[in-house]
């Protein structure tokens, strides 16, 4: 018997399972996944347009990710820039 079990502590796979389920179900219950997808798609287009005014970028190089966890929602924006010729000639 390990010491964790002896003290009856639950620092273990069951709590991982519980946390994963809570996050997942919060997302699945929301029922707003399709509106999220629309929002992300239009945000992506606008961000791409703004960045493209200044920098030559591949349209596929803009990645957006929305993450809902508990009470907070975060928006992650990841833009891959080309190695050379960063600035657009005026």
């Amino acid at each position, binding site marked *: 018997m390990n010491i*964790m*079990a002896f003290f*009856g*502590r*639950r*620092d*273990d*796979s*069951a*709590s991982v*399972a*519980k946390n*994963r*389920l*809570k996050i*997942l*179900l919060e997302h*699945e*219950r929301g029922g707003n996944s399709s509106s999220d997808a629309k929002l992300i798609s239009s945000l992506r287009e606008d961000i791409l347009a703004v960045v493209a005014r200044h920098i030559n970028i591949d349209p596929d190089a803009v990645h957006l990710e929305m993450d809902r966890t508990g009470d907070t929602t975060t928006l992650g924006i990841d833009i891959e820039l080309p190695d050379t010729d960063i600035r657009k000639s005026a």
Partner: protein
Amino acid sequence: MSNATVIVVTSGKGGVGKTTSTAAIASALAKQGYKVCAVDFDVGLRNLDLIMGAERRVVFDLVNVVRGEASIKQALVRDKKLDNLYLLPASQTRDKDALTDEGVASVINELRMYFDWIVCDSPAGIERGATLAMRYADEAIIVSNPEVSSVRDCDRIIGLLDSKTVVAEDGGRMPKHLLITRYDVERAKLGDMLAVDDVVDILSVPLIGVVPESRDVLKASNVGLPVTLSDEASPAAKAYIEATQRLLGEDIPVTIPSEKKGLLGKLFRGRAA
């Protein structure tokens, strides 16, 4: 109007114990003296007949009745031990689309005239068979194993109970009861298994019982007896009998009957959602 109660035993995921639970609870209700009918909705893959030991006496089935090829009374199979317990078997040969909404509605309405309790064994999945099994229910028993995929699927089923049933469409809220099966107290204590409180917390459904993992369940199915009839002293049978008492409205704390003689598991208070 009849005073019958229609219960659906459902889970989303397969193999969690819906049929075992249907047979055990229907038998426990019948033992209390109620007139009970267990209905198998798993068209194409019926098994409630086998678990209840009635497989050799099936003549007509639910699909025959829905299609008007047999009367309900012709299709009902009386239990070999309890004469107030009946089974309405599913068809083994047709596909799940053989059931129609109107057909099921009329079968359930007629059963309400003859029985106090109608216990519907839902097929796995979220398709026609499962939605029809829950459609005309008054209450639902949601069966979950303490395991991630089972809990997730139960959450989907709760969503369907709150949207696709007649109770929900009429603006009501279907009363739901959570039944946790195949529970292992020791593994939960070690943190290897989701604990009762975790599952109740995630699903927010009041707990009606916790059935421990027990070898008696397999033994009972081997001989075609619901576990509540094969061995009343078995921990699983005790758990089902207590769950049935709660279904009948008795306010008793949820215990987890243990394999060890005379020892009761940790006490859990049934938490209301």
